[in-house]
């Protein structure tokens, strides 16, 4: 019996609530809870940090998103570094599957942005798979301009919304 587990779950929930932005980490809570209840294969960490291999771990320690220029889907040098960390992380946790969610800012038409979001997610997946991650572990979905991470109609919000986000696939 490990009495620190309930405390760990609570901590994970609180952290998820703080770092959540929009729909991207909608299943962060449940992911944290299920990893915790399964006991995990890692040694218990301090209750203040995210449990390794979880969505919170991705968000806090790895970086769960990459950003794109307006109407572009190519990965920048910085973005490639982030995707390389995703690849390493997925090799460390071979049971994890992920969905890459592609998103756009609001400065385009709805259907075009659905396609552009798909293109961005695919661009990230492509690089991830080229780094040796099994393509069966990586799904993609586009939300177009429908799920902004940051509300507001200004350059700063738009830059943060032109993104691909990696989310642990609970299915």
């Amino acid at each position, binding site marked *: 019996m490990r009495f620190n587990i309930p405390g760990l779950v609570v901590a994970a929930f609180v952290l998820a609530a703080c770092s959540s*932005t*929009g729909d991207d980490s909608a299943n962060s809570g449940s992911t944290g809870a299920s990893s915790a209840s399964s006991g995990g294969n890692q040694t218990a960490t301090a209750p203040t940090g995210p449990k390794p291999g979880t969505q919170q771990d991705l968000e806090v320690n790895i970086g769960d998103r990459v950003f794109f220029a307006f*109407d572009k*889907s190519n990965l920048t040098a910085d973005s490639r570094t982030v995707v390389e960390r995703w690849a390493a992380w997925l090799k460390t946790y071979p049971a994890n599957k992920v*969905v890459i969610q592609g998103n756009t800012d*609001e*400065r*385009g*038409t*709805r*259907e*075009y942005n*659905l*396609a*552009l979001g*798909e*293109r961005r997610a*695919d*661009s990230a997946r*492509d690089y991830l798979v080229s780094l040796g991650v099994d393509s069966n572990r990586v799904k*993609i*979905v*586009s*939300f177009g301009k*429908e*799920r*902004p*991470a*940051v*509300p*507001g*109609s*200004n350059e700063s*919000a738009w830059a943060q919304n032109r993104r691909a986000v990696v989310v642990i696939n609970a299915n």
Partner: protein
Amino acid sequence: MMMTAPPVRTLFAVLAVLLFTAPLTLPARAELTVDITQGNIEPLPIAVPNFIASDDVARRFSIDIAQVISDNLERSGLFRPIDKQAFISQPQSLGVNPRFANWKPLNAQALVVGEVNIEPNGALRASFRLWDVFAENQMTGLSLTTTQANWRRVAHIISDTIYERITGEAGYFDTRIVYIAENGPSDRRVKRLSIMDQDGANHRFLTDGKTLVLTPRFSPTQQEITYLAYFNDQPRVYLFNIDTGEQELLGDFPGMTFAPRFSPDGDSVIMSFAEGGNSDIHVMDLRTRRVRRLTDNPAIDTGASYAPDGRKIVFESDRGGSQQLYVMNSDGGGQQRISFGDGRYGTPVWSPRGDLIAFTKIFRGTFHIGVMRPDGSGERLLTRGFLVEGPTWAPNGRVLMFFRQEKSDARGLGGTPRLFSIDLTGFNERELGTPVGGSDPAWSPGPLRQ
């Protein structure tokens, strides 16, 4: 996948009979007409007094029907209903000529005289005559029998008859709008498939908002809607049956399908399928379920819309480096770019008259709604804004609806989209009130045929 939602009852049949009377006087001057092709015209003064009621049950309808007609005509921008307070007299009988002398001082060019009766079986019978006040002759007349619940449709059909007789163009009042109702801040917005009459009445939410839904379009029979839904976070094209609320997944694609539209004969749905960062246009035959690929290009090809004769398709593609409009044959052959102006072009929609294509244009950060001929010539921008998007045509090809969205603030507020209509001439832009915000309007292809 089958799911159910609250059914929407279809309307009962409307029995219509033309009312003929021998003209009592010969036309003494040119016919009363409104030419709606000429931009900002002076609206025609028209008097729409309360209909004559046979009894107390009919009285409510007699007032409400006149009001709906008056509102329809006013909203079209082509008519100016005269304030009822100014009326000198009320029509007392449908069977005799009106006292034109009482309407001329109001400068009423046209007069609508109507009557409502409740039949012994409870059916509602509404009759009306449209009079040219200064020529003192009847322009048209109609008698309609239907259920009492159908009274709004009666008012819309009468409005269409008046509009057609005076403008020479088909009316568009007995029509519906399917659209996406939106509420909540921009980063937590709830979107629901919704339907309403063209004037906003009889509004219904068709989905519960738990699933993201987008871009609905009517089938030609109006019994079905094709749209994009994110069941299980998988964006796919579905068919939604309006009567039963049942939904059906279209096709077995390994990735996102989106941007669906019916073919004009209703036999197939054209849509985009995205795979590996590449979106191409496909068409599915709804009977055989066979899918045919129409574009094969590494670019984003989407937003396909058929010409009314079904022979051509307009779509958008960024194959040339930026989002532009292209036309192809219905078999995918003869792909040709038609938009060459500055900026990006998307969401093309072929006019039901075949003569124009409406689109969204983004130029220097501003969005526009515009039209061009199918060969790309004659581009004309009708309205602009921080975001205006997604035009849809009224079935007469004279009026467009679209959605408009302002900037949202740091809390995601202020940017809720709203529906607007505008004349093809660029005048008479008006908001269509909805219970919450609205986007992606699609006008029904005509009146319900039943």
